[in-house]
């Protein structure tokens, strides 16, 4: 089999001549251009009061009506070539599954950058129910990531160094013996270096988060500039993460889950205080420092001797917060209103130690919320309290917690007044 394939391939290679290549190009180039022209010519859109209608396709026509009130985010992307030509792609993000945004016909390519900006402003204004010709909403920058800090943060994370070390180990024998096989082997490692460092730098270059009336504007990128807007209240969950060496300058990375939105990076690197300030702006009336974080019971040490010290969870009347990780310390935050469902999971070992995990499910994205290794009774109480918060819904505010970090840690019954109400009469003071 291999021999046959090799001989076929050799014949094929021998038959490639300069003339052949030229003829192929001559045929291919007009075809491709004609296709590109037709694709552009037959793409139309019309903005209505309640929807935008997209019409694409030359032979197979496709009409798509996108309801504006279902719009989760509108993004302007500029791939490298389009950027050189001053063009942009407008992507419409809808909630639910993202089954390949480009293919599903919810992107418009290409518009001039200016046109893309005004169209986006118009769509967002219509979606928000404001006059459509209001123009692009004014924005106020909240955070800018300086390139120097971005470069330093990549240099301080272990992944690029590991990839570089792997590349070095692979390339050494090739250099010593002078064979070229080693260079082939090194390619994946170099791809790893690219992915872990250069691409992170390119995508986070001049990363800016600004605030505007229609939502949070996130833009950044060295080669491809991306620009998207997260409408207010669409942030489902937030994660702060720091790699081991970042703790020394006190940096964190912030990622968010947004329904139907593949992009999750909110801040590639920022000082913790800045990140917390940004989160508190995203989730108004939330004071992260005031959320009482409770450790798991001491017997959880048997299952996680190293991590145990870093596991915490807590809730106030608006958000649920978990902390975990010894080296890569993570803090995850989910507003109660964004919790889709609640699970209590008890592995056999956990049951022997009367422990359980609580998972709060939220829409797709990198952020997963799980409060690990809680006391089993407490886990069920947390789940019951979350269910109660879902029941109360968005328009009811719960009684506000007043205890701060410097207060003595609350006992289990005081964990949350709502909990006590749910647990009454057995687990807490009655009503």
């Amino acid at each position, binding site marked *: 089999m291999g021999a046959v394939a090799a001989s076929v391939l050799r014949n094929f290679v021998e038959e490639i001549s300069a003339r052949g290549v030229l003829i192929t190009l001559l045929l291919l180039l007009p075809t491709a251009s004609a296709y590109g022209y037709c694709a552009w010519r037959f793409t139309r859109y019309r903005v209505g009061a309640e929807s935008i209608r997209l019409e694409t396709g030359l032979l197979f026509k496709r009409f798509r009506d996108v309801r504006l009130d279902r719009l*989760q985010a509108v993004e302007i992307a500029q791939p490298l070539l389009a950027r050189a030509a001053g063009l942009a792609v407008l992507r419409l993000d809808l*909630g*639910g599954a993202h089954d390949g945004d480009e293919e599903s016909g919810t992107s418009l390519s290409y518009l001039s950058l200016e046109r893309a900006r005004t169209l986006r402003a118009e769509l967002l204004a219509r979606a928000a129910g404001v006059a459509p010709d209001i123009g692009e909403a004014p924005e106020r920058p909240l955070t800018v990531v300086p390139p120097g800090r971005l470069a330093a943060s990549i240099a301080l994370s272990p992944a690029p160094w590991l990839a570089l070390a792997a590349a070095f180990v692979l390339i050494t024998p090739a250099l010593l013996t002078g064979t070229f096989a080693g260079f082939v082997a090194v390619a994946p490692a170099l791809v790893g270096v690219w992915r872990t460092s250069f691409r992170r730098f390119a995508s986070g270059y001049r990363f800016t988060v600004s605030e505007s009336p229609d939502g949070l504007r996130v833009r950044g990128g060295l080669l491809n500039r991306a620009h998207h807007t997260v409408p207010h209240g*669409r942030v*489902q969950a937030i994660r702060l993460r720091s790699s081991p060496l970042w703790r020394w300058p006190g940096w964190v990375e912030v990622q968010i889950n947004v*329904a139907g939105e593949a992009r999750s990076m909110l801040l590639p690197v920022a000082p913790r205080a800045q990140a917390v300030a940004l989160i508190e702006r995203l989730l108004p009336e939330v004071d992260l420092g005031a959320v009482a974080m409770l450790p798991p019971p001491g017997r959880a040490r048997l299952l996680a001797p190293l991590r145990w010290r870093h596991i915490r969870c807590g809730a106030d009347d608006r958000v649920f917060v978990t902390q975990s990780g010894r080296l890569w310390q993570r803090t995850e935050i989910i507003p109660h*209103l*964004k*919790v*889709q*469902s*609640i*699970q*209590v*999971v*008890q*592995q*056999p070992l956990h*049951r022997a130690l009367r422990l359980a995990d609580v*998972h709060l*499910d*939220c*829409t*797709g994205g990198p952020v*997963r919320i799980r409060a690990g290794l809680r006391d089993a009774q407490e886990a*069920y*109480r947390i*789940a*019951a309290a*979350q*269910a109660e918060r*879902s*029941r109360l*819904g*968005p328009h009811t505010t719960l009684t506000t917690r007043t205890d701060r970090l410097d207060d003595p840690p609350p006992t289990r019954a005081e964990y949350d007044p709502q909990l006590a109400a*749910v*647990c009454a*009469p*057995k*687990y807490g003071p009655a009503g």
Partner: protein
Amino acid sequence: MPDLWRVPPQAWRGLSPQLRRLRRLLLAAGALPAAALAALVGGTLLGPPGLLAALAPLGAAVWAWHAIGRAWDAWRYAERDDDLLVQHGVLVRRLAVVPYGRMQLVDVTAGPLARRFGVAQVRLHTAAATTDAVIPGLAPAEAARLRDALAERGRDRAVGL
């Protein structure tokens, strides 16, 4: 725990006995030929004592028979005023709480064999892919009732993303 969830014990519902029957039938359909094959191979290789080789698949089948029963027993669900509780698992115990307001759709599925036995599976979907709320075996009438009840309550309490 019932006082924690404020669900009276009789409000917890179990699965249809037909599901247990279906699973045990499938088990028997697999285990009996396996035992026969083991006896045949053992008998030809070792003579009459080799027939005892059939005991291994049979023993496994007996254990699986009980495991099916325990898993069936452990699966239960309760409709509360504002959410659905689904509890299952023998080794790994799981409890899922799905608020009606967060449900996006309710699937009722039944394969050809399941239809013959009169069981249907109800699955709840929310905007989160990790939501794991499945009720695997209900009588079709109960499945339809549950689906309609859930859909109706979901409509009343729907919350946007």
